[in-house]
């Protein structure tokens, strides 16, 4: 099982404890550059950038740029990388990162072909690496490290784990949680694609044993069956921390792709009803509006007291 906190934070006594190095692939592009500086402002230890052909230069007069991932990893020993290259070039960039020894790869690009994602996952499995995304806002431990594109304001350090397929809904719901006094121990963006490197059940395995975890929020949407699988896993594992879900897309028509490549209902496969009924079976309330999430969570906490 993946020790996600070990990867993002490390253990006390390690020289890079709470300042794990992150490499940014595609750091000189406008998007990569913007978010690299946002990550730096947030406190993330960005140690290198990679852009083929620009090796030897520095980014923002401070961070070295390398031509290849192998060089960047050799120089920094970083285990985390975030990719900002166009979807067409994702497979190449991901392969390079995994071959160079990256153990946590955050895949930001949208529109990555499914086959390329599946090939990336096959290689990640072989290498014992974790992929977050593609089409994800990223992953963060609020107030410590952000490997992603989230704005900082919605998040606050705390004891609730938030898993979300959608980016803006992650911000919206974390904002509501923060305002209600529920900080977050970790937030994981699953991504809006049909195939996710880290599925909801995988993300659940990463967070369920956090020692001081007080609750979990799952932000799902129509398409696929990862919410159903998660609900079943929660039932089977006997996980009993207060958990609340939200599912977007109840009013969406069938057989239409709703913005995300993965948000499509085919027959009953992927329908909101199927997901909601499975969560009900797992005794997990499903909010009708994002603003209702903290209310339901508070209710659950009262009951478990």
């Amino acid at each position, binding site marked *: 099982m993946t020790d996600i906190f070990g990867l993002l934070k490390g253990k006390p006594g390690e020289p890079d404890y709470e300042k794990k190095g992150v490499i940014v692939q595609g750091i000189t592009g406008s998007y990569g550059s913007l978010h690299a500086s946002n990550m730096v402002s947030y406190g993330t230890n960005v140690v290198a950038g990679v852009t083929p052909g620009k090796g030897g230069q520095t980014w923002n007069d401070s961070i070295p740029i390398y031509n290849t991932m192998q060089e960047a990893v050799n120089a920094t020993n970083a285990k985390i990388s975030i990719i900002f290259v166009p979807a067409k070039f994702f497979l190449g960039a991901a392969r390079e990162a995994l071959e160079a020894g990256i153990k946590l790869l955050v895949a930001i690009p949208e529109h990555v072909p499914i086959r390329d994602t599946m090939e990336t996952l096959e290689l990640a499995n072989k290498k014992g690496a974790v992929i977050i995304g593609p089409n994800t806002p990223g992953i963060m431990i609020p107030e410590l490290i952000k490997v992603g594109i989230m704005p900082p304001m919605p998040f606050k350090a705390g004891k609730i784990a938030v898993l*979300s397929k959608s980016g803006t809904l992650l911000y919206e719901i974390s904002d509501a949680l923060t305002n209600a006094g529920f900080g977050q121990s970790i937030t994981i963006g699953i991504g*809006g694609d*049909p195939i996710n490197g880290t599925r909801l059940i995988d993300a659940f395995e990463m967070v369920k044993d956090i020692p001081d975890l007080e609750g979990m929020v799952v932000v799902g949407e129509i398409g696929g069956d990862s919410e159903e699988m998660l609900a079943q896993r929660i039932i089977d594992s006997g996980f009993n921390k207060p958990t609340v879900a939200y599912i977007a897309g109840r009013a969406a028509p069938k057989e239409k792709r*709703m*913005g*995300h490549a993965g948000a499509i209902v*085919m*027959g009953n496969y992927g329908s909101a009803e199927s997901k909601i009924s499975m969560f009900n079976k797992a005794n997990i309330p499903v909010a009708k509006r994002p603003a209702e999430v903290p209310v339901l969570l508070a209710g659950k906490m009262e009951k478990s007291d």
Partner: protein
Amino acid sequence: MQLLEFQAKELFREYGINLLRSISSTDIEEGRKHAKELGYPFVIKIQVPVGGRGKAGGIQKCQNDDEFELKYPQVMDLTIKGEKARAILLEKMADIKKELYLSLFLNRSKRCYTVIASAEGGVEIESVKNQIIKEVGLGEVSDELSKEVAKEMGLEGKTAEQFIDTLKKLSKLTIEKEAELVEINPLAIMQDDSIMALDGKFVTDDNSNFRHPELQKYQEKTEIEEQAEKSGFSLVELDGDIAVVGNGAGLVMSTLDMLSDNGGKPACFLDVGGGATTESVYEALTLISKLNRVKGILVNLYGGIVKTTVVAEAFLKAYEDNLIDLPVFARLKGTESEKAKEMLQNSRTKIFDSVEDAINAAVMGVKK
């Protein structure tokens, strides 16, 4: 994208899957010629990119000229699940012994292709009984597995042989074209024990389009959809009267849900993408101005770092340019919202602090 039946069948034909004779047309003139060529009896089939055609009356048997003249226009005029006919397919009538089900799809949670087959096809997949389900990895379906499926379905002799052949060809097609789903339902056993694909469903992975120029000709986009794509937006047209705009697919879906819960009817789903700028919001309003039926616009933006004044500018410019004359009900999260409200004070745009308030106002607003 989901191909039409006749397009899926073009691909089936290319890969050597057995088909009945069929010809597609887009008007009755053309249809009459095809009717002569084909000869009665045949079936008239509406071509729409959604399921449930039979139930909606989109598939009609046709025995003679009189029936043809009556039924062709009837089928052409149908709207099924909001989809108008893109074409009409005339297909020879089949003498069927039995209907099977066969599909290959991308199993999202198992992350591999999966075969579903059944000896009891011809109904919607949810109702197909005795489904045989096999995970097949990322490559083509093997000989061995194809034989196993045929055996489990109880097929024998020539039928089994042709079924195995069909499954392997379907698998090759699925992999080579990077499809998300390819379905033949029904796959028929004919009186002479041969196998024939009577219908075809084909859903591509749009993200791999750049590797498949040969599939480009099947792209059927409305002018508005094309513009949306150019701007990097996602647009789904719906049949209500309140246009729904936001940033991020999840957030827009969520807004659609809440609007429907409150008795509103969405006219479209429009996701302008993660960020929001004066330009992108102005672009979105341009697209909406081209949709019919819209009586109001509901905007839900979670900006994060975006200044709401920047978005307010887009509304003002749209009114100034006479692009829209519709009321806008907007919830803008981000900095400077007080200033944005001031800017829009005398316009037809109202800004709200919560999305719930914006939705209620929109539902009331379009009723007037």
